């Protein structure tokens, strides 16, 4: 706490007219640990005479010859009045003011404010909650730490992306991912998904993975528009303000080295419980199929060896030892479990920081090597950062920070599966492994031909790729080299007027590879793609800040600023097919090359450039520490729109009122603090570049004539450029209340908000009969309403024992009010396919899942066809609302002397999930949920087409394969309610006395477990499905699972040394 207060110090310099009488000097220190406190105001009571303690905490002041009282004050510290008497030296130690609760928070554009002055909610997470937790992804670490934010992993593989949604969905086509600001400058947090979820998009990292959690000092999250308005359009989805240790400003004279070493193990968090009684086949006949509807193990002695019945004679020749060989028909219950592994991860981080005179500095170095639970899934990170902050003169301050990050991810490809192989054209390590037939000894039979390395598996046609082959011979890599940093100049023009100029650069080069060796049935000739993405953000900010105190009651803080941001992205790549020599990965070893991706059809070479400018202003008027009025405004111009629509202004205002200060009677020992706040904010959304003009498609190599000559084509684009496109408009009101009770042992922070987004820039599908298939138009309206609640409490303090708890609760509704006239629905881009996907439909929750369903009769009874199976509809309708009813977490913390035990539990209520994983476990008859007497027949509940009650008997295979597994999509939708033990940690800080004689200032050890247990209570019991996954990747899709992966669990320990 004290650190915050210090580094966030506001230097209120009071006028310095004094009478020459005598001089008193002294030092201000912290009562907590005796360190110097710079920046404390020292004022002679009853006068305006005063000074400020310097960086060593020393002060010197002229005071009257006799008597007098000095007032020591600082935000967040208890104000002290000390009589001078006859002393010439006066040292004071100051304590935290729990009553004042003067938490200083970072708000937009780095403006630091007393939290009580804010008319909107801001959440803060300290670095200690993020460091040494065994997880490299800052997004995942923030999960459950605050209300109003929903964070979903795209999968459990190391290094995969994370979806962050703050305050619900507000746009159909635009990005909903928050703005990352690192040390005051924009930081690209894109997830560069090469292609869509069908071809490996979910194996991509979100670029905030390049941040080193160990180097984070704290994270502030601006959720509402009234908080983020100064960031303009880019801040509309909320802002995650990361302050790295490099970006910290003044602290005391000190030098410190922190060394942390952690070791973690990663495992697949859950696997289905497999039934042990039935092997592969259908209708209780044995057959070498995925499906486990074969005979019971007790009913058949032996079958042909999985590799003993190839219909391809070349494969029979490759495995003569198995040809026709009989093997015992039995269960191999550990096939899937043994396919996955326990991955180890090691993280070393060194942090050196200190301060001397007018300079402070920080250097961090971190290295992580993490093995995921999937074979050949690795993540390697190197982070290096340095920052200095210097007061060059009394008025002139310079700070600079530079960071280098290298992130290398390798994983077998992960893309959508449909329960019968992959859904698209790529590869996926998961798609066929979870329903490995119980009688196939996956880990002990060969998976490649000894002759040509091609994949072999148990089907006679060898038409299914062996997952072990996929894991070994296919790969996606992601290699990022990134430099980001900023330099800022602060100049105190007068005591009240400060000018700041800050330049920021964030540039990275991301090299992606997609490797598929030849010989797998899915891409039999092999495929290789390389892509280079260079992304650069140049950002300039210029600010003028003004502080003024009018008399004793009225204060003004104001800032005006301007921003110019330029984003450039250049990408180039090559896609090759038809590998010549197996195993050699080089474009030269493939016969066909193109810059058009053979897998996705995307052009790998492209560039985008866009510029964005804004001017803004904010002013907060404070009255007597209990009433604050803030007005803000910003005007933006974007190069992604045509001139007439480039400019948009958006205002914002908020009020904060602290009754407990205004009416002192109100305050008591029971009731310590109450703040009421209200905010109104607006923002805009600009389109992605190049949405306003149509163009011409050129395909250089479209076809060949009969002589082999290249035929080039031109074609009018299918996308219609809408020159009339305008910015999206967002408006939000929020009301909140903060309260503290029982000597601050119990606190509430509650916020309700209502956000309306309109003129949504929507990729509207067009009837091709118009000549185009899509365009961007401004349509519709979405309303988001939500309640955010955080309760903090300290139920128990007994001596050194302390129990703290935090409860976060978040409920939202996200409703589409209207679309364009005549547009009844639109598929949300990135949310599945038109036949099964997330839709925006007027009157319905955003992202409503539509899919085909079971036909009903007039009375709503399920209709069964002549074959006894449910009749699938030809059309789609809503089959589930993927938005959770609420998400919540409880963080509990016990500490006793140096020992701290904490745990975080999450509870998600509702939110439908279409689950291919679950459906295929049932359809394939592998999970214990379908372990029953299969000789029985079943009658599906429903009526026949003639209206009579259904009496058609079905076999167990038909029931699950044709209906619950692969039948109408409606039958594969489940409720996503989940209880989770998100995190447990136990740490021990060695007592100072014990290490007094060592060179160490501190030694700590901690053990942490992540995602140790969860249960999706409304899923069939034995699938152990984790709802924290998103097959559609980072974007606006939700509630769709296409077999892209179970989550991971991690556990390990960290040793921390402080010199």
């Amino acid at each position, binding site marked *: 706490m004290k650190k915050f207060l210090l580094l966030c110090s506001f230097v209120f310099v009071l006028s310095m007219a004094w009478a020459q009488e005598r001089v008193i000097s002294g030092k201000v220190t912290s009562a907590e640990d005796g360190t110097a406190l710079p920046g404390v105001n020292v004022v002679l009571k009853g006068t305006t005479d005063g000074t400020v303690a310097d960086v060593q905490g020393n002060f010197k002041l002229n005071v009257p010859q006799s008597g007098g009282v000095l007032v020591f004050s600082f935000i967040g510290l208890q104000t002290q009045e000390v009589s001078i008497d006859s002393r010439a030296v006066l040292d004071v130690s100051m304590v935290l003011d729990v009553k004042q609760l003067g938490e200083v928070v970072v708000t937009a554009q780095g403006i630091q404010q007393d939290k009580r002055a804010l008319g909107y909610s801001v959440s803060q997470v300290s670095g200690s909650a993020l460091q040494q937790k065994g997880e490299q992804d800052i997004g995942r670490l923030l999960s459950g730490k605050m209300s109003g934010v929903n964070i979903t992993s795209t999968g459990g593989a190391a290094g995969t992306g994370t979806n962050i949604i703050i305050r619900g969905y507000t746009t159909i086509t635009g990005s909903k991912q928050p703005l990352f600001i690192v040390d005051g400058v924009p930081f690209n947090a894109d997830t560069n998904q090469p292609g869509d979820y069908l071809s490996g998009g979910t194996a991509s990292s979100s670029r905030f993975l390049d941040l080193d959690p160990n180097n984070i000092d704290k994270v502030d999250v601006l959720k509402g528009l009234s908080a983020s308005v100064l960031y303009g359009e880019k801040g509309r989805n909320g802002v995650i303000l990361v302050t790295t240790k490099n970006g910290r400003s003044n602290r005391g004279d000190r030098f410190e080295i922190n060394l942390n070493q952690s070791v973690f193990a990663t495992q697949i968090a859950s696997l289905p419980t497999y039934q042990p009684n039935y092997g592969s086949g*259908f209708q209780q*006949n044995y*057959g070498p199929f995925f499906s486990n509807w074969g005979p019971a193990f007790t009913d058949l002695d032996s079958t042909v060896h999985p590799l003993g019945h190839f*219909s*391809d004679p070349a494969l029979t020749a490759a495995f003569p030892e198995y040809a026709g060989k009989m093997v015992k028909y039995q269960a191999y219950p550990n096939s899937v479990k043994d396919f996955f592994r326990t991955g180890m991860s090691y993280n070393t981080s060194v942090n050196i920081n200190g301060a001397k005179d007018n300079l402070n500095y920080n250097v961090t170095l971190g290295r992580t090597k993490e093995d995921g639970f999937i074979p050949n899934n690795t993540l390697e990170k190197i982070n290096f950062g340095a920052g200095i902050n210097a007061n060059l003169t009394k*008025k002139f301050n310079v700070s600079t920070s530079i960071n280098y990050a290298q992130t290398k991810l390798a994983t077998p490809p992960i893309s959508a599966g449909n329960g019968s192989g992959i859904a698209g054209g790529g590869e996926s390590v998961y798609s066929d492994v979870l329903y490995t037939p119980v009688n196939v000894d996956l880990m002990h039979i060969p998976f490649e031909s000894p002759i040509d390395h091609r994949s072999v598996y148990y089907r*006679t*046609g*060898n038409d299914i790729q062996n997952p072990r082959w996929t894991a070994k011979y296919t790969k996606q890599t992601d290699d990022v080299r990134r430099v980001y940093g900023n330099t800022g100049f602060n*100049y105190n*023009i007068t005591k009240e007027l400060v*000018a700041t*100029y800050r330049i920021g650069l964030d540039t990275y080069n991301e090299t992606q590879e997609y490797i598929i060796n030849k010989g797998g049935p899915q891409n*039999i*000739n092999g495929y290789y793609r390389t892509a280079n993405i260079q992304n650069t953000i140049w950002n*300039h900010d*210029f600010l003028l800040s003004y502080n003024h105190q009018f008399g004793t009651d009225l204060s003004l803080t104001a800032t005006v600023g301007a921003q*110019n941001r330029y984003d450039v992205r250049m990408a180039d790549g090559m896609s090759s*097919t038809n590998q010549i020599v197996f195993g050699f990965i080089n474009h030269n070893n493939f*016969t*066909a090359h*193109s810059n058009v991706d053979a897998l996705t059809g995307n052009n790998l070479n492209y*560039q985008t450039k*866009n*510029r964005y*400018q804004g001017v803004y202003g904010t002013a907060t008027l404070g009255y007597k520490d209990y009433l604050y009025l803030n007005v803000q405004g910003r005007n933006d*111009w974007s*190069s*992604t729109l045509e001139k007439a629509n480039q400019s948009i202004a958006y205002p914002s205002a908020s009020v904060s009122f602290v009754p407990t200060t205004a009416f002192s009677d109100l305050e008591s020992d029971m009731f310590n603090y109450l703040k009421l706040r209200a905010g109104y904010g607006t923002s805009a959304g600009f389109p992605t*570049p*190049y949405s*306003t*003009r149509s*163009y*011409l498609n050129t395909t250089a*190599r*479209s*076809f*060949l004539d009969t002589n082999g*000559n290249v*035929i080039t*084509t*031109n*074609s*009018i684009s*299918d996308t*219609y450029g809408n020159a009339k496109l305008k910015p999206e408009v967002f408006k939000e009101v929020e009301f909140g209340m903060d309260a503290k009770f029982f000597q601050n042992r119990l606190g509430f922070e509650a916020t309700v908000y209502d956000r309306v987004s309109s003129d949504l820039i929507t990729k509207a599908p067009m*009837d091709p*009969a*118009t*000549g*185009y*298939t899509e365009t961007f138009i401004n349509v519709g309206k979405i309303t988001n309403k939500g309640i955010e609640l955080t309760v903090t409490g300290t139920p128990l303090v007994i001596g050194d024992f302390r129990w703290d708890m935090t409860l976060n609760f978040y409920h939202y509704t996200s409703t589409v009010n209207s679309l364009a006239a*005549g547009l009844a629905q639109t598929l949300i881009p990135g949310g599945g396919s038109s*036949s099964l996907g997330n839709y925006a439909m007027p009157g319905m929750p955003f992202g409503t899942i539509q899919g085909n369903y079971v036909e009903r009769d007039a009375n709503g009874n399920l209709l069964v066809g*002549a*074959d006894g199976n449910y009749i699938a509809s*030809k*059309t789609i309708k809503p089959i589930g609302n993927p938005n959770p009813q609420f998400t919540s977490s409880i963080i509990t913390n016990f500490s006793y002397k140096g020992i701290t035990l904490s745990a975080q539990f999450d509870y998600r209520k509702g939110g439908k999930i279409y689950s291919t994983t679950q459906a295929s476990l049932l359809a394939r008859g592998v999970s214990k949920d379908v372990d029953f007497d299969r000789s029985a027949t079943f009658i599906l509940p429903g009526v026949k087409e003639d209206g009579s009650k259904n009496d058609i008997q079905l076999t167990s295979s038909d029931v699950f*394969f044709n209906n619950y597994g692969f039948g109408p999509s409606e039958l594969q939708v489940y409720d996503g309610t989940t209880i989770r033990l998100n995190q447990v940690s136990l740490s021990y800080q060695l007592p100072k006395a014990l290490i007094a004689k060592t060179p160490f200032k501190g030694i700590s050890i901690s053990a942490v477990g992540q995602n140790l247990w969860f249960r999706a209570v409304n899923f069939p019991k034995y699938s152990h499905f984790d709802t924290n996954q998103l097959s559609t990747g980072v974007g606006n899709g939700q509630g769709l699972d296409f077999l892209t992966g179970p989550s991971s669990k991690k556990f390990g320990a960290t040793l921390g040394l402080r010199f």
Partner: protein
Amino acid sequence: MKKTIAKYIVWVTLVVFSSCKLDGLQDNPNYIAQSQANIDFLLNNVQVEFGNFFNNASSRGMELTRMRALISGANYNNAYQITTFDPMWESFYSTSLPDFNKIIAQGEESGLYIHAGIAKVLKAYELVTMVDNFGDIPYSQALDPTNFNPQVDPAAGLYDTALGILDEAIADFGKTSSATVANDMFYAGSTKKWITAAKTIKLKIYLQRRLVDTNAKAEIQALITSGNIDLIDAADGSEDFVFTYPGNSIANPDTRHPFFTDSYINGAGAYMSNSYMLALYNGRGGFSDPRIRYYFYRQSTQEGTDVNLISCYGLPAPAHYPAGSAWCQDPNGYWGRDHLNNDGTGPDNRVRTAYGLYPGGGKFDGSEGVQTTVNDGNKGKGIWPVLLSSFTYFMRAEAALTLGTSDDAKLMLTTAVAQSITKVTKFADVTSTRVPTTAAINGYEAAVATDYDTAPEKLQVVMKEYWVAAWGNGIEPYNGYRRTGYPNDLQPARNPQPGDFYRSLSYPSDFVTRNQNATQHAVGAQVFWDTNPAGFIK
């Protein structure tokens, strides 16, 4: 110091904020502007796309007329998701039509009449095919991006529109063009052959609407009047209107025939139709059809007996199947599927029957009974038989029989069959002892003539032979089936009550979900030229 810094700040601010323009960043740097379109490149696009359009339209026809198996449902109503028809709709409207119109406008303006003429022929063919498949479709209100909801035009009028476009094309081909086309993928720049194509499409149009067109006889008579004949009828196939895949190139671009990529990369993909294969296997007069080994390639010449691969093995044919109907699989490894059999797919891709040498550029069936590989046969060098000379003779036979035009129907039929067999057997060089002998070919052709003479209903023989000859083209058989009801011995659906036959395809998802003025029609909805009674065919 203070002044210096203040100056510096002002300077930086000016540089940073005033010199950065927002203009000039709206044009997409990844594409060229529409004004830079090259008419030859546009023409290339519509020609290449014509192959895709034909494939989409033909596939549905082949499935519905049981030339290839339709296995995506157990009854007609759920056999197709309406999204199946999206590619055809997109191919015609958004991919081709704007380019057709641009070529025509630019061609007429700059005297590039061959460009304009080719675009008109292709456009007219696609337009009537769209009408044949969907009935009423948007046209007069189409291609206006300010109108998201174009209304449909009556189908009959669109037929007239197409005829008008063809007449214009024929006129264009008679003019002197200011330049030749860079790539004529059909006729290598021969305007004379383009005129035969335009006129043959007119023949097809008049024949197609003969049930509702009292002028059909006169119009057709004019086209076939001796001395005036300018149709696709050259016996050497040189006038055939075919789209050619040069094959071989597997990527960038993949120029292999879709039948080849279906059946020769990882075993067979699509299921052949038991019904069609048995018709050819049985042939006529004791002679198997001489084309069968060109049409199909058997990966195994053995009967399938593993119920895991062929679940109907050993089961009796459904009671509603007439005697002699194909069921489950055909003899000697002709392994396909029955009509509307939607059972799960067993791992039989290495044994089921694949597409053959004609027209997809696969392998001639020399009874090897081995699996297909990517290096087989013609490596994907194949064609789409859009309009062959044999088709012209089949159409003339039908016109003679139904309208009383002056042709000798039997001569037309036998010429058609002979030209079809020649086309197929001369498609590529084949060295195999299984190449049909002249005796076998003559025997088959003689049997066609005999069957024609003895048949109570001559049209039945004509339409059945047209169906056999059309392999690779599902458009003409689908139209013919709806127009004439023949062949009338197609294998029934496995389900005795499969519901109404697709008298036209359902409107695609792209249309009904995106266009407010779209109203879906029933599966049984009939196209304007189909005046046959409901339930006429199934």
